[in-house]
């Protein structure tokens, strides 16, 4: 079972890298999600796969009756899933706002390539200046 999972993790990481390096930021999000899942699978596999009972203790006992699966990797994966979910949402909103402002999500466009973008542009308005729409 482990070799099969190891190979699928490898295939998923390869696919994720391909998507991430394509230069389109929406594909980057898909790559990120895929890679996140691959890493979760890897943690799960690294924590040993075993054909045992789930880690539950019967009422009235302090120890499980038989050998149980390792619960820690599952807890780690659960935490990683939750955090990854939040990160993906943030990334999507960020890309949406970026598209809103720049009208492109192609990382090869000048607006992304130009390192000076966003720094002090003497001709343009101060990025931290008072917002004209701000009532205060």
């Amino acid at each position, binding site marked *: 079972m482990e070799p099969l999972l190891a190979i699928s993790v490898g295939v998923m990481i390869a696919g994720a890298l391909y998507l*991430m390096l394509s230069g389109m*930021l929406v594909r*980057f999000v898909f790559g*990120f999600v895929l*890679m*996140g899942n691959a*890493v979760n699978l*890897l*943690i799960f*596999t*690294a*924590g*040993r796969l075993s054909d045992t009972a789930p880690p539950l203790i019967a009422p009235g006992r302090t120890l499980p009756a038989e050998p149980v699966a390792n619960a*820690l*990797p599952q807890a*780690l994966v659960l*935490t*990683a899933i939750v*955090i990854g979910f*939040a*990160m993906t949402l*943030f*990334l999507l909103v*960020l*890309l949406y*706002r*970026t598209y809103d*402002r*720049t009208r492109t999500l192609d*990382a090869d466009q000048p*607006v*992304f390539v130009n*390192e*000076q*973008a*966003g*720094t*002090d*542009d*003497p001709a343009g308005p101060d*990025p*931290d*200046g*008072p*917002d004209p729409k*701000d009532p*205060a």
Partner: protein
Amino acid sequence: MTHLLIFPILIPMVWAIISLFFRMNDRYVGISAIAGAVVHLVSTGLLLTAVVKQGVTVLWMGGWTFPAGICLVADLLSAVLVVTTAVIHTAVMIYACKDLHTRHVRAGFHSFMQMLTAAVCGAFLTGDLFNLYVWFEVMLMASFGILVMGHPAGRLTSAVKYVTLNLVSTLMLLTGIGLIYGLTGTLNLADLHEKVLAVENTAALTSTAMLLMTAFGIKAALFPLFFWLPAAYPTLPAGVAAFFGGLLTKVGVYALIRLFTLVFVSQPQITHTTLMAAALLTMVSGVVTAAAQTDIRRILSFHIISQVGYMILGLAVFTPLALAAALIYMVHNIIAKATLFLVGGLIHRAAGSFHLSHIGSLYKTHGLLAVLFFIPAFALAGVPPLSGFWAKLLIIYACLESRLYVPAALAAAVGLLTLFSMVKIWMEAFWKPHPRNTLSPDEAPPRNRSLSPWMLTPVICLCLVTVLMGLFIEPLLALSVAAGEQLMDPAAYVLAVKGGK
């Protein structure tokens, strides 16, 4: 006494929640944030004194002890860095009080900053690898929030670079954690120290070490992984840039120091040699690129990279003295760099631009600002008797002691190039006649804005700290040497975690 460990994390978290509720009341939320920062500073000071008195302090969360529980551990390295964090947090909060726009405050700036401080302190204090990952994620989330605040288009595109590269690095970190758990069956750092010695598959162990090194290398902005930093930092408001530039990369450096003194020490010819190469390339590439810049914030951002190289050099040399030097370097650099970014903000206020070609003659119009720039800039370059001189001297001395002549020479040369960049800002911003005023230099420049005492006070205090650290280095030196010995011989750390109960 061990409960002192939780306060540096808990206090900013509580204040973050309070600030979130009162963020519309933008006058009082700033003052309450300063009060919170001062309380936080006091709590970290108490923690440092406790650690100095009692040695390594451990707090088991929820009463679960080794090996099932999760612990916070404070040794000298952690405690000193937590105090430095609190100092910068306080200074930035006072500065931000007048620097920020109302809409940033209403967007929850103070909550984000306080969560960021809590996360930085959490990362410094945790004794568990997975919790280190969680603190890094909290740090990332808070920094993302601050980065996109106000969302001008330029900052959004740089935020995309920052966010994507940092997300890749967290995935690498998570992969490394999964692999090391598979190899050893534990994620407690003190337990890992012993368990990795029993791992037979050293190839897998070293690969995991390199994976984690890459992940933290991205966070610490090591060569060749630093490209997100000069894209993102120059777009931030000055107070935020001071906090980010001063502290966030140092958390990556801290994680590298912790892992490569406590856990991955069995193959130093591979891991520490790689660190050495990365450190030297980081130092040189950062300083050379900085020389080509003309925006103050971009110059400072590239210098962050170059300075991180020195700290990693201290780790790579791997002697007690070198680690002590790395710690002194971190403390000095966090303070000097944060001060420089704040001064950069003041220059922008006074002259109306960050571009060296658009400003000038500040020495005449803002004499105090010239002094405030001079002190951290020359401390950064390593001019005696300021704090940077001792930091650089110790690093070079540690290199020479280990017969590493090329790194020592490079460290000295990079110091000179740093001086070149700082002199460039000095000449252009302070000495050169104002470009709009070249015809009649006696006339005052048109944009002569006065500076608020709220913004000057924290900068003056930080400058004083830099000077005093340089003049009275002995206490910090003694502390750092003790910390270096603690790091090289982790027996006390391991005993405190495993035997302390």
